């Protein structure tokens, strides 16, 4: 038992980085998802195209290659960022591209009749989107956003490959110095799982809170 506890400080240090990267990448990914998802629905063709190019580029290539590209190739063009910034940026762009589809599907899931009700109340398209369509769509986006958040958390483990001391990196280092495969990877597994669990519960709570008026019982 004491042996296990010896491993924890290192792993916790790694976890800290994992959480930090997730915490910065997630809101950035959300912004990218919303911006590109809405851009794809915009009447302005140029915005549509920019969004399509961004989404297809990041969905069509592997995250690992994107990380390597930003970390090793971009400096050749004069853009060199520190590893953590690179990690946050690439993870956000990658997750945002998937989130873009979630946003598009969410907006599309709101019945056309809601838009028509807005027209009958003489709202502008922008106001209808902001006040009526988006709030309803957002509730349906939350579960897939939750999935993406967990994906993001797990994807941070790739950052160890661009020299970032995250939870996976910490595990590997400990393994190399102590050779205690079973305990180390068992612990790493459990810590990832527990973190994912906390995030899942948080998303559930958010879904409940945002779902006002939706799941209420029918009682005339």
């Amino acid at each position, binding site marked *: 038992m004491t042996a296990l506890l010896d491993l924890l400080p290192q792993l916790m240090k790694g976890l800290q980085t994992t959480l930090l990267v997730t915490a910065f990448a997630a809101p950035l990914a959300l912004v990218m998802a919303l911006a590109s998802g809405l851009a794809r629905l915009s009447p302005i063709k140029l915005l549509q195209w920019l969004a399509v190019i961004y989404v297809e580029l990041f969905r069509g290539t592997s995250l690992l290659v994107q990380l390597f590209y930003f970390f090793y190739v971009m400096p050749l063009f004069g853009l060199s960022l520190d590893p953590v910034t690179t990690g946050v940026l690439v993870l956000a762009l990658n997750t945002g591209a998937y989130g873009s589809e979630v946003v598009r599907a969410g907006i599309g899931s709101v019945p056309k*009749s*809601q838009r*028509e*009700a807005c*027209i*009958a*109340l*003489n*709202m*502008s*398209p922008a*106001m209808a989107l902001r*006040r*009526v369509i988006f*709030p*309803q769509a957002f*509730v349906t986006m939350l579960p897939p956003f939750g999935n993406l958040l967990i994906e993001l958390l797990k994807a941070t483990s790739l950052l160890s490959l661009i020299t970032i001391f995250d939870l996976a990196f910490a595990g590997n280092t400990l393994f190399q110095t102590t050779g205690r495969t079973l305990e180390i990877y068992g612990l790493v597994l459990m810590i990832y799982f527990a973190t994912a669990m906390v995030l899942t519960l948080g998303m559930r709570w958010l879904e409940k809170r945002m779902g*006002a*008026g*939706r799941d*209420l*019982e*029918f*009682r*005339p």
Partner: protein
Amino acid sequence: MLPANIPPSPALRLRGVSKAFGSLTILDKLDLDVAPGERISIIGRSGSGKTTLLRVLMTLEKLDAGSIEVFGRYLGQRPEGGRLVPATPEETRAVRGDIGMVFQQFNLFPHRTAIENVIEAPIHVKKMGSKEARDMGMALLCTVGLADKADHYPRQLSGGQQQRVAIARALAMQPRIILFDEVTSALDPERVDEVLSVIQGLAQESTITMLIVTHEMRFARDVATRTIFMEEGLIVEDDAPAVIFGKPNKARTQSFLQSVLGRGL
């Protein structure tokens, strides 16, 4: 003061209004004039184009040809060099504000309570103060008999109650013309009367112009000052309700009424 010899502009003036879906003609060069304060019930078989007529008036469908004037202003179009060209969205909105609509399926905003549904557009479109809007909204909910349900979400209301909220919501924008599209068709039979009597009350107490598409024939006769029978995208007969429901002049009107009424109202 306007000189007395200039007639007031009609609430609606439709000229050659046409709409097709693919090769199917739904509205066939329709002409229609509606005077302010008229209440027109529109009857006809399912598929005859009644909903489409209301939808083009609400700008939910684009015209293929023809023009619509609302109190003397073109809707969705603007005269330019002797022709009509598409209007800007702002111009369209300026004219569209005169028209409100109540839908068959209510289309309330599910994420907003009854009162929020009613005051949403007055506050955000008309920039009414929220206190003033709330007072007006509560008064309207009172009129439709739902003051006690103000803080209920649509899901918590029966169909009839939802439809009455929808009527209050449309009225809150103070339209000069209101369109009703089969507003009781989605309701349980025992919920129909509560909605019809709200509309009857409105007819009695206001001078708002109404176009009412309905399958409730007795209501179509009693609420209206004028009745239109439509078939295949055409206005077949347009007369006083007493004539249409008493002694229609067209054989097609007669045969329709016979098929829906059987032995009478």
